[in-house]
């Protein structure tokens, strides 16, 4: 069983009087433990595809099974739970809460767990150690460099031990040496068994992945 099974996924947005089809029948399997890059230019539909895989959005038609469960028909609350338990997001501009400490940011996904694990803090501190920021736990995001902020975001994405890590242009705002660091961490995570899906337009970033798919005009090519 694949981790993600997308079959004939279509997504249509209505803008004004016009229906615009952004995804035009995407069929895609993502296996457990894979490191996949989805490449595309802006407007290619790659972000919409990522939202779909990340359960932030549901397809207009088609089927999407995550860990064997059909998610395209779930309601908002159920999608929230799926995101919480199975998916970790990493964004281009880090998206940390500016008024919360590093540790509080990492702990964010644990707040919305239905079952409390009671060792969240320990887990979060371990992850901060893993990304080399254990001594920054009490800092605020604006006291950190861009690379450090993205490492906090990675720790946050991992804290609920998701099966799938979704990274949307994770190095887009970083200089090349910092970008390399981040990609190294993602590769490490993948080596430890986490499935990583990378969304990017950048060849160099995509090259870290083991499989590269290209999306253009709403279709995989």
């Amino acid at each position, binding site marked *: 069983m694949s981790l993600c099974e997308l079959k004939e996924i279509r997504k249509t947005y209505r803008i004004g009087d016009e229906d615009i089809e952004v995804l035009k029948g995407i069929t895609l399997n993502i296996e457990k433990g894979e490191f996949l890059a989805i490449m595309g230019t802006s407007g290619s539909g790659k972000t919409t595809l990522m939202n779909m895989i990340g359960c*932030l959005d549901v397809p207009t038609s088609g089927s999407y099974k995550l860990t064997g469960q059909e998610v395209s028909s779930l309601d908002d609350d159920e999608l929230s*739970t799926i995101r*919480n*338990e199975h998916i970790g*997001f990493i*964004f281009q501009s880090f998206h940390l809460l500016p*008024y*919360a400490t590093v540790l509080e940011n990492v702990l964010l996904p644990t707040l919305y767990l239905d079952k409390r694990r009671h060792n969240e803090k320990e887990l979060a501190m371990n992850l901060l150690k893993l990304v080399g920021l254990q001594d920054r736990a009490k800092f605020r995001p604006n006291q950190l460099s861009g690379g450090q902020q993205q490492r906090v975001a990675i720790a946050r994405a991992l804290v609920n031990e998701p099966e799938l890590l979704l990274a949307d242009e994770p190095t887009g705002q970083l200089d090349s040496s910092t970008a390399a660091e981040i990609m190294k961490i993602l590769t490490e995570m993948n080596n430890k068994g986490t499935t990583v899906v990378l969304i990017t337009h950048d060849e160099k970033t995509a090259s870290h992945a083991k499989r590269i798919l290209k999306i253009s005009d709403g279709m995989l090519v």
Partner: protein
Amino acid sequence: MDRLYNIFSQSVIAVKAFKLRTFFCLFSVALGIAAITIIVAATEGAYKKAYELVARFGPDSILIASGGDEARAIGRFDKTLTMDDVEAIKENFDTAYLVVPMSAMRGINISYRDKKHQTAVFGSTNDYSSVWTWPVVAGSDFTEDDVKGLRNVAIIGTYIAEQLFGSEDPIGKHIRVKNIPVEVVGVLAERGTTPMGSSLDDRIIIPITTLMRKLQNETKYVSTIRARFVDHERLAIRQLEIKQFLRARHNLRPSDPDDFRVITPQEVVKFLVAMTGSLTIFLGVAGVISLVVAGFVLANLFLLSVKERSKEIGIRRATGAKKSDILMQFLSEAVIITTAGGLLGFFLGYASSGLLKMVAEFEMHFSWKAFAAGLVLAWAVGVGFGLQPARKAANMNPIDAIRR
């Protein structure tokens, strides 16, 4: 419960983080709650004072005053009650254990040696002291014989004792009331001031017979009658009976208005409370308006905040927060702030009550009621005006929110 606790703790962090928003919302709520607290405390204080007053003057008593409402309204203060009415009530009402007539003259010149004073002279019977529960603390009361014999004797208030006699013992001394010499036989206990601020101790009481014949040239009419009843739990019924009885005695036709008024302790309470009423209403209107304004301030600042924090909302939604989690977070941020505002408002009200007491002779009574009223209203503002922004936050599309 864990989840709720987590969300609540996020609200606490946000309330601390967005200081300016917290500050403005908190103070605008606090001002409204302060006004409300003062109102509740003032109303309670007024009632408390009124009940104390009634308890002191006799919860089992009614006062019958000459002149109906209409006559008073057009400025006529004719006396309509008579000494015969007093006797008739005594005979016909078994449970009336005291029935005492009174007449008063105000602005009467009295003097002792070279000291002069203007005061109110009351004529009554030897039961005056008991019917008002107002003991004679020095000397003695005047007697039935004094009343029957039209004797020139008086009991005086403490204020008169001070004004005319200073440190001298007034008992047995003769004062002049208008032109007649009167012997002071007793001094009444100190009573303080009325809610209107006039001294109750600025008075002298002489036998009503003396007052009527020698000062008023009057044989029949008295201004008021005060009666006390054994069965005070049936005072309302007695009040009606007295009304019927006097109407019949005064030969009033069914279409005629009463030519007297019967005042019960309940009405005294109402009257006394109404006196603080105008200030209370003013404060009440101010309080409610400022609370509504506080609500709009809160709603506006929260709407702004939701807009400003749309990215945060998107992040929370992406990491697994449900709509209800977001709603709860923003709602509890609002309620935390208004609760703090409510508490601050209560203490502001409490602190400013001292000032109000000085300025307006305002009786305040702070109880859990004022506290609870403030808190409940604060919560109402928090929930009432926080709900719409919180809903807006909860219903944001996570994809749009995060990209903003």
